[in-house]
Structures are given as structure tokens and as C-alpha cells.
């Protein structure tokens, strides 16, 4: 029997100013910094986001974590608010989380505003992903 630790991957500080505006939508996204990837075999269990500066300027702002092509891949709950400071999070989306884990995966954090991402004028957070490293099994 092997023992497995839960590993964590911590993002850079995700500053509103560095997000990419998905033009014409309420969405803004940012990828983890190059090099901060989930390794091959990472079975993601969930994540937390520590919001140090509120995402302000719109009526709502919610965060989800996934990848470029599957923005809620690691988010069973896609309604966690970053409109206040504090810690929020979600377990991973069970049906998607492990798909494609034969490759290293770059996480993407997406914030959805109430109307238009362009309305959001500030905000900072750090996201931590928790996963089991299955490579050596």
C-alpha cells in the first residue's frame, strides 16, 4: 500500500489588471503563470481562492477554475463570489476533473461579472488547487 499526500499548486497573485477581457461578455480570465502547471497525472480534488481585494465595479462577480477549453473543469460550484474579501472555493467537477490528465494542464481562472467584465475596476486573489499526484502508481 502506498501513501499519497495531497499536493497543492498555488497561483501567482491574480490581479484584475492582468485578466484578459473576453470582449463583449461578462467574463475575464487569467491563466496561471507559465511553469505553474498541474503535472501529468494530477487528479484535482478542489480549489480555494483567497480574495485580498474585492472585485468591484459590478453587481456580482463569481469565480470558477478550469482550463482554457473547459472553464469550470475544476468547479462543481461556479457561484463562489469574489465580491468580498475572504476565502471561497469548490470541489472539482467530478465528471470532468480527471479528463485529460495524461498531459500537464495549465489552470485558468475565470471571473464572471454581472453584466460586462469591463465594469470591474479592481480585484486581487490567489487560487490554490489541491490534487493527488498519481504519476508513480
Amino acid at each position, binding site marked *: 500500500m502506498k501513501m499519497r*499526500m*495531497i*499536493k*497543492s*499548486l*498555488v497561483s501567482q497573485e491574480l490581479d484584475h489588471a492582468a485578466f484578459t477581457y473576453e470582449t463583449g461578455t461578462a467574463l475575464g480570465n487569467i491563466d496561471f503563470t507559465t511553469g505553474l502547471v498541474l503535472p501529468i497525472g494530477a487528479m484535482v*480534488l*478542489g480549489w*480555494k481562492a483567497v480574495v485580498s481585494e474585492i472585485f468591484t465595479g459590478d453587481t456580482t462577480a463569481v469565480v470558477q477554475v478550469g482550463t482554457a477549453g473547459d472553464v469550470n473543469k475544476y468547479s*462543481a*460550484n461556479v457561484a*463562489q463570489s469574489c465580491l468580498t474579501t*475572504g*476565502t*471561497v*472555493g*469548490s*470541489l*472539482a*467537477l*467530478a465528471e470532468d476533473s480527471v479528463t485529460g490528465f495524461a498531459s500537464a494542464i495549465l489552470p485558468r481562472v475565470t471571473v464572471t461579472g454581472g453584466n460586462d467584465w469591463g465594469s470591474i475596476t479592481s480585484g486581487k486573489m490567489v487560487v*490554490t488547487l*489541491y490534487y493527488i499526484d498519481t504519476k508513480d502508481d
Partner: protein
Amino acid sequence: MKMNMIKKLISQTLDIGDFIDNANTTGYIDFTTGTALPVGAMVLGWKVNVTTAFAANTVYTPVDGSTIAFVQDGGADTITDSADGFVTAGFEAGDVITVAGATSAHGAGIAIVSVAAGTLTLGDAVLAAAEAGIAGVSFTVTSTASVQIGISGDVNKYSADTTETVAAIGTVGSLALALDTVTGISAEKLPRVTVTEGGNFGALDVGSMNATIYYIDTRDD
């Protein structure tokens, strides 16, 4: 990259006598004060070790079996007692009973819809046959008790599966409810264990278990 252990939080012994009866199908007990999930606990799931099956050991033999009749009338079947002993004996609407000692095999899992002194009203066509005057007939309330774990205000917060039985000795469990489990992670959470009995929670006479909750402690990241 950091490493985190999976931690666990173990309840006190959860005995049926310590549960609070919601006066419906459910009863609950909170973990002892001081054994809360800490700030930052990302719950993954839980197990329950049932050491004494949750059961209703009461066997009702109202007055005299010879006064009992099993009645089929084309609609809701009934069991009648010409000695009017049902209420006194303790039957309650919602109880699920097993009949023993009858001539016909009425079987188990018969739900009582309503109770009057002389009549148990059942569902439609649930009795095997009409019969009367059977000395020695008896009724046992059958437990269908199941367990879920959450908190006050969200009783299934940590339970993707809310139908795990505690009606038998053994170990059961569930992964957490992915949608809810991390919500409110910024505050301590006092776990609540809820047992649901198919009839009435109050019908349960015995039962004991302990619960263990597994979580990632994210505080130090």
C-alpha cells in the same frame, strides 16, 4: 508546491438517546462542542461506523390476535382491531411494519398511512389476503434508518449520498456534496448528523454509531 495531509475529525459516540427528535421522520445530533471543522477545512467525505443497528425493537401484539382482522376492500387495505388497541399499543402513522404469525404472507415493509384505535389504514392492495381471528399475530416496526452529515441549516452539506443505511451494523459513508461542501470555508463548522427513519424517527429505540469526517486543511497554504 506544498504537501497537505488529509485530516480527520471524529465524533463522539452518537447514541440514539442523545439525538433530538424533529417530531417527523428525522432526528439529529451535533458533534460535541469543541469538535468543529476548523476554518479552511475542505471536506472530502465521511464514514460512519454503526456499532448498534438503528432499529425499532418494539413488537406490537395488540390485546389479542383473535381481535385482529386483515381487510381488503378494493381501495386502501386496513387492519382492524375490534378491541381498539392500536393507539394504546403505540402504532403511529408512517410506521413501516412487518406482520408475523398470520396465515397469509403479508410480508414486510407495510407502511401505515393513518392510525385510529380500531383501524390501521394502509396503502392500496398491500395485504396478501383478507383474514381474521388469528391468535398470536404480531407486528414489528421495521427500521429503514439512513444517515447524512451536514450542518445546521444544510443537513446534507457533506453528503452526496443521503441514503446510506444505519439499520445494520457496519460501515457506510459518502463523498461530500461537491456543490456545497466548500461554501463558507472561512468559518468553523459544527457537523450535524441526521438520521431519517422511513416512518417516524421516534419509532427508533436503539442505535449507536460514530462518524469520521475527512478533509484537507487549507489554512496553511
